[in-house]
């Protein structure tokens, strides 16, 4: 008979990491570690969400996030519907709300949404009664990615407090960077943001991070280095140096890797541009957490789906 206190989770939606308390983040990570075991069973399924329906509504492309959410829902015995819209067909907020209401009218319990506009998940959550999970809204947040990165770091080091974590690349346009930054600072890590001045405004210091434009000046002191993907769709803009220059200054090359701490932990949210932001032998090497991140993403998303389904408001 369970009689421990259970008042640590009440949320119906997961929209940002910024909203979460350190205690809530810890609760999600603890729950995820219990779910990890389910994937090791011969029957990789539990009936917790039997009869519930989750819809993936992706207004932007995604491979691993979408697959990971689908698989997480299946492992919890929920039914999964995929609803995809090409970027061009939905451009106005009102249409988004209409779309969400239509999806909800089909009897959906959880909407997982990825959209190019910051704040879109928030907007949808205000207009529907079901649960909403943000799977990436513009350059704002990607909370489940942030949480799975926290999980993977905690699994590797046993703790997060006191670690130094560098996040490297196009910070200004990165929702992964923001979700990581919020989560890491809440849990007591020191975050160093690294990128060219055009892609890393000084204003990030207000969020509690160190802002650095020279990767070599910090690479030797960090415990974790999280390499962001070079977003080629943005490299044509004037803010972005040439890909070659970017790679030389901010890529995790073999030479630069030699300057790292011997037990440095290398992360990348995927999809990787091998040879640009990260050298192949590092991505595939023993200090890479890349595949662990994907594996843990499944457990974290199971935990999030389970928790928002229990949440009251």
């Amino acid at each position: 008979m369970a009689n421990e206190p259970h008042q640590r989770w009440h949320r119906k939606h997961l929209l940002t990491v910024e909203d979460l308390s350190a205690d809530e983040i810890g609760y999600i990570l603890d729950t995820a570690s219990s779910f990890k075991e389910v994937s090791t069973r011969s029957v990789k399924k539990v009936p917790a969400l039997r009869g519930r329906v989750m819809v993936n509504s992706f207004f932007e492309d995604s491979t691993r996030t979408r697959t990971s959410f689908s698989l997480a829902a299946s492992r919890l015995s929920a039914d999964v519907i995929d609803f995809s819209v090409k970027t061009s067909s939905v451009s106005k907020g009102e249409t988004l709300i209409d779309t969400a209401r239509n999806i909800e009218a089909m009897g959906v319990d959880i909407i997982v949404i990825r959209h190019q506009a910051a704040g879109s998940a928030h907007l949808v959550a205000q207009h529907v009664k079901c649960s909403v999970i943000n799977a990436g809204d513009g350059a704002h947040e990607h909370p489940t990615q942030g949480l799975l990165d926290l999980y993977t770091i905690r699994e590797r080091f046993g703790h997060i407090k006191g670690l130094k974590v560098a996040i490297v690349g196009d910070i200004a346009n990165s929702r992964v960077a923001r979700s990581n930054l919020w989560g890491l600072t809440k849990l007591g890590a020191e975050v160093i943001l690294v990128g060219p001045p055009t892609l890393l405004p000084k204003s990030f210091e207000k969020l509690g991070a160190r802002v650095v434009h020279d990767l070599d000046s910090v690479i030797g002191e960090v415990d974790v280095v999280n390499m962001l993907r070079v977003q080629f769709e943005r490299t044509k803009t004037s803010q972005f140096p040439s890909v070659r220059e970017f790679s030389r200054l901010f890529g995790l090359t073999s030479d630069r890797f030699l300057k790292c701490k011997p037990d440095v932990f290398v992360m990348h949210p995927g999809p990787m541009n091998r040879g640009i932001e990260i050298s192949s032998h590092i991505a595939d090497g023993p200090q890479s957490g890349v595949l662990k991140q994907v594996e843990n993403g499944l457990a974290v998303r199971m935990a999030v789906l389970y928790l928002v389904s229990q949440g009251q408001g």
Partner: protein
Amino acid sequence: MRTQYDESDVQRAVQGLASKIAQSLSPDKPLNIIGIRTRGETLAQRLTVLLSAKGFTQIGRGVLDITLYRDDLSTVGPTPMVRPTEINVDLAGKPVLLVDDVIFTGRSIRSALDALTDFGRPSVIRLVVLADRGGRELPIQPDFVGVAIKDAPTDHRVNVRLKEQDGKDEITVEPRG
């Protein structure tokens, strides 16, 4: 109705369970003992020690968390914490002793049986409880009972406390507060 069982009562009941189990199973065959979190796990540990002393040599152990199998998840109120299930033994073809502290409605045991089925097909599952308080809502009955608390009123809680978690061994029947 008796409302208080002290340390010696609890220990005698656990000893009694071990003796009854030892009489019904053969000690030289494999046996898996699976405890339901949290106090079932502790009882399973104690039974393992006692049965080992009685000559059982091939005991596998596991812990079951039934949260994800409950039939009242949507109505239970505050979200129950999901804890890991740890069953690293092969259940197929071997007997399982499923251990819990109290049996009441039978719904926890129904959940536990569903969960166990996902791990394999034991040759037989026997249910061991420290306290049977009656009040079943499902056709599920224990095979081995430590203490029978006849007809504990439904508005009362039967609390099992064990040294390992609670600092002392006792069973109390108290009004729900």
